[in-house]
């Protein structure tokens, strides 16, 4: 039994009946068990792991094996052109560029993996930023209630009705473009600062509705501090990494996000669209990679949410 609060979760359907000796099970252990039964979530988890591992070590391996990095342009001018996947310059089969090359002869696989690194990093860090702000604000509003709640939520309402995407675009267009790293930091802040609103609302709503439910009352009765209750039971509702990644890719697609020579999936797709009629793989390869990753992340997220919410099992 991990903590007093976790043992108060509704026992799973296959748990021992009340008259049998009760063995402790925690919300966490329960969740893992349920998650493992969900085949789609496991599939998502595996694919996400593969993508993360590939983007972390992939560029290094490619550089060792072929000498290509994400911004390596071949010195031989005859190689500075777009080649289809698995094709050597003479048209025969080759393992050298599994995703082909772009107009400058750069290896697309290396660029896609770098893009993955950046997209995932933006997703995780910005989500973290928004989590901290959103949970603090939302949980305070929902848990304290009363006048504090009203004041906070009025403020959030006003901010919410701002088309924040436009403010982000203004922010990035006017302040961006100085350096590639500076642009990344700007992205973290901008995306984190705009996505906390939804988070705050969700968390507040959850806190409000859960505050009155018996298992929270029970947790409180056993002396678990309020912060612990909020974290343990509400954090699972805030899996927004895929949506932040989407937002980042939109911005990069519009040319406002990640700057060259760095690349993200959005900016790669934007480059690919230029040549879509002639070199379709330049769009399809990064696009498909991104779609598969988001697909898996979403499945994993769905599975996690179901697994962590004991009430969902009835459905």
């Amino acid at each position, binding site marked *: 039994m991990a903590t007093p609060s976790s043992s108060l979760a509704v026992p799973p359907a296959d748990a021992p009946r009340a008259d049998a000796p009760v063995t402790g099970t925690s919300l966490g252990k329960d969740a893992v068990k349920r998650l493992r039964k969900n085949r789609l979530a496991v599939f998502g988890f595996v694919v996400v792991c593969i993508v993360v591992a590939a983007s972390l070590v992939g560029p290094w391996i490619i550089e060792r094996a072929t000498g290509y990095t994400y911004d390596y342009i071949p010195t031989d001018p005859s190689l500075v052109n777009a080649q289809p996947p698995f094709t050597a310059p003479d048209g025969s089969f080759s393992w050298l560029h599994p995703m082909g090359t772009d107009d400058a002869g750069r290896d697309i696989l290396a660029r896609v993996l770098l893009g993955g690194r950046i997209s995932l990093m933006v997703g995780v860090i910005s989500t973290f930023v928004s989590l901290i702000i959103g949970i603090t604000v939302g949980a305070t509003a929902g848990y304290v209630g009363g006048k504090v709640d009203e004041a906070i939520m009025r403020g959030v309402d006003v901010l919410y009705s701002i088309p924040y995407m436009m403010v982000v675009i203004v922010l990035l267009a*006017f302040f961006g473009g100085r350096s590639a790293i500076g642009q990344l930091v700007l992205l973290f802040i901008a995306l984190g600062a705009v996505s906390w609103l939804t988070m705050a609302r969700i968390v507040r709503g959850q806190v409000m509705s859960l505050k009155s439910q018996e298992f929270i009352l029970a947790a409180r009765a056993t002396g678990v501090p309020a912060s612990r209750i909020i974290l343990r039971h509400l954090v699972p509702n805030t899996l927004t990494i895929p949506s932040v990644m989407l937002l980042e890719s939109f911005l990069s*697609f519009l040319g406002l996000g990640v700057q060259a020579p760095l690349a993200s999936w959005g900016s790669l797709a934007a480059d690919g669209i230029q040549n879509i*009629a002639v070199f379709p793989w330049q769009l399809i390869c990064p696009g498909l990679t991104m779609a598969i990753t988001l697909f898996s992340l979403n499945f994993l997220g769905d599975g996690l949410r179901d697994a962590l919410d004991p009430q969902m099992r009835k459905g």
Partner: protein
Amino acid sequence: MARFILRRLLVIVPMLLVVVSLTWGLIRVAPGNFYSGEKKLPAAIEKNIREKYGLDKPWYVQYGRMLSNTARGDFGESLKYPGTTVNSILASTLPVSATLGILAYLLALAVGITAGTIAALKQNSRADYASMAAAMLGISMPNFVLGPTLVLLFALRWYWLPPARWDGFSVHLILPVLTLSAVYMAYIARLTRSGMLEVLRSNYIRTARAKGLTERQVVMRHAVRGGLLPVVSFSGPALAFLISGTVVVERIFALPGLGNYFINANLNRDEPLIIGIVAFMSIAVLFFNLLVDVAYAFFDPRIRY
């Protein structure tokens, strides 16, 4: 209800003040100017430009003028396209974006609600799994991937549909609308399914069945109303997202809509145009949110304003 609507309409004032001031502040704090380019302008020319656009005045005079312009709904002339007023740009681009957005959302509602309801009524059937898998795909597929893929297939390979451009209300709209609505379709289908599943288990549905209504009546008259609540509350944020969605879709399909102009205005540092579009969009978002809240009261009889 009337008081609620009035109060919400009054919020427009402080909200607009916040948005417009924030945008204006960002534009002013950022280094550079709309006339600064690769080459440095001769001092005399720069002085003339600054005088012409009132940039030589202290900041509070400029801020005040911007606010009064916004209050009057007259944003002045574009800096990039001299002689063209921001209002005329808004008037010519709005129909494009609005047509696109509204058609996409209607399509999303129609397909999403149908698929979600069927999935909920036949839970764990093949139709359920198929539509939920399709929905997941729709959520995970960025529209800048989906759009060009559709173009590649339908326009460049099979020559069925035109690939891009704006041509009024015509077949040119099919691909952009499909691209834009895919995500919303997917979200709405999922929300409808979970909403309906929850409602179908509730007591008032049991009552409706018990009093002998046909399954069709139970679903159409009672379940749908409660089951669609999540969809209604999703519509507020969705419409805000639709704005960002249109930016991308207008880019892909080279449509002369608000979004495309907004991006260019930002790259050109065209201050009046930026302020004008931001102010207009903010009002639109607020208005849609209000509509959603009113709709919410209609769908859920427990809600009173």
